[in-house]
């Protein structure tokens, strides 16, 4: 079933919408949640919450496609749960590693003037992503959006692990230079 038909099911308030969503995107949502939470039980609950939130969002929303729509909801819910878990000291080593790597991209605040809000930061990130090659963008987002491990990215993109590492290293350097250029302080 294509995305438009599934979205139509949501609009007609058919409960089949959830089953069809799960069949088509359940695996994807579970992977996103598990990459962040590193816990099957928490991930399963997160995916259920994703479906509930999607059910409550459509209507009134009518997304163009479900892939990114569901992915974003899952990621946000998983991160919220991760924060809660971190406070309780359990799970989420993958996120910590990704965060440590991203810390390399933070410009030196002593050279810049004002702190940026998250909406502007997202605008800048969109601008930056648009300037990357499709492959570099895919690898970067797999690592820092979906929180995949290097090995998973290599398998998903069918490239070597060293190539993934090289690409991430380059892109982090470019992002740091870009944020400095744009005068972004985090």
């Amino acid at each position, binding site marked *: 079933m294509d995305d438009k038909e599934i979205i139509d099911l949501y609009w007609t308030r058919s409960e089949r919408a959830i089953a069809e969503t799960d069949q088509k995107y359940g695996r*994807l949502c579970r992977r996103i949640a598990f990459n962040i939470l590193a816990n099957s039980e928490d991930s399963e609950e997160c995916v259920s919450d994703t479906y509930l939130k999607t059910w409550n969002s459509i209507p009134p929303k009518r997304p163009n*496609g479900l*892939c*990114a729509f569901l*992915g*974003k909801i899952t*990621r946000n819910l998983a*991160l919220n749960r991760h924060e809660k878990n971190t406070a309780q000291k359990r799970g989420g*080593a*993958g*996120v910590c*590693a*990704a*965060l*440590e790597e*991203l*810390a390399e*991209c*933070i410009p030196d605040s002593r050279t810049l003037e004002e702190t940026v809000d*998250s*909406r502007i*930061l*997202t*605008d*800048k*990130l*969109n*601008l930056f992503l*648009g*300037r*990357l*090659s*499709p*492959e570099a*963008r*895919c690898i970067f*987002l*797999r690592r*820092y*959006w*979906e929180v995949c*491990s*290097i*090995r998973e990215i290599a398998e998903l*993109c*069918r*490239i*070597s692990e*060293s*190539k993934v*590492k*090289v690409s991430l*290293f*380059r892109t982090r*350097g*470019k992002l740091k*230079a*870009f944020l400095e*250029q744009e005068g972004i302080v*985090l």
Partner: protein
Amino acid sequence: MKAEKLFQALGNVQDPYIEQMYAYRSREDRSRARKRPGVFLLVAAILSLLGIAALAAASPASSEKWFYSFFGESAPQDIESALTEHQQQILHSGLAEIGQSVTREGYTITLESGLCDGRRALIKCRVEAPENIILDARKYSLQYSHTIAFSGGVPGNYSASTYHSHFLEDDDPGDNAITVLLDIFIQPPENSGISIADGTVWTITISSIDSLTGSPGNAEWNTLCAGTWEYQVAFEDNLLVTQSQELLSEPVRCGATMFIDNRFVHSKRLPLTAKILSFELRSLTATIRVKRPLIAHFSGVDLEKPIYLILKDGTRIEVTYHQSIYREGYDEVLCLFDRPVSREDVAFIELPGTGRFSAAGEEIR
């Protein structure tokens, strides 16, 4: 907290990027899917007609293989067949021997050879650790902390704006040596006349060798050795590699796009444009000078599509953004290609929302 803010902001990037990520197939994967026995036989037949001498001329010397690996990020035989004759000439004639070794704390770093087009230098380095230390590129990556300074004819010093180390495949993961590639970029002050390929002596100082250890997804950097490895490097002018060519005879207006609330905003009633003042082509880089509309000071504005170089054989090469600096009234953008470019191979340049311009700077209607 700062990295978390970046991580959170990444969660709201535009949907098309997420969809593209899931739909993405690597170049290798695509080429595997495209391969047809008939095409292979045709290529073999043409090569046999050209004769063995032609094959030998196209084959890279062993010292150039690292360069193929870097540019193609794929098997040397694949990228070799993808390079034009002029591109192969650039690799062949541009490669300069450096051959400088410095040993500190038992670690020897040798700058072996390099290629430079005046704005970008690629330098092959070999790192040898003491006998009892295994350097395995599959498990370790090496990172250099280094600075670039110029001397001799250049007033004061000037540091390269960014630099990277790229890691090649490790031939022998069980030994104490690894090969890395320094990738250095420079955007000198306006009208300074500074080039890094005119014989000017410049200094590279490496101050640490770091290793990336741990399991995938849980890696960390550790300093293997700190010290000062210093080198004096000079690349001579090489017309084939360092030639620069202006591709536009006059400024050209291109379609531009504005980003508001995470969306591309394209208004037919108020079309945005950016003025490309010049496009300076070199073998490894291009310098684009672009004047953005006033609104760019308040919101993100970028060209609506990438710029492409179209080669005479029909190959499209994306001109990829690398870094930019703001000059008085315009942005100077340094761009890269995924392979060396020969001016003779360029049929025209494709600018977004405007048209195609010949390599002589004339618009093609």
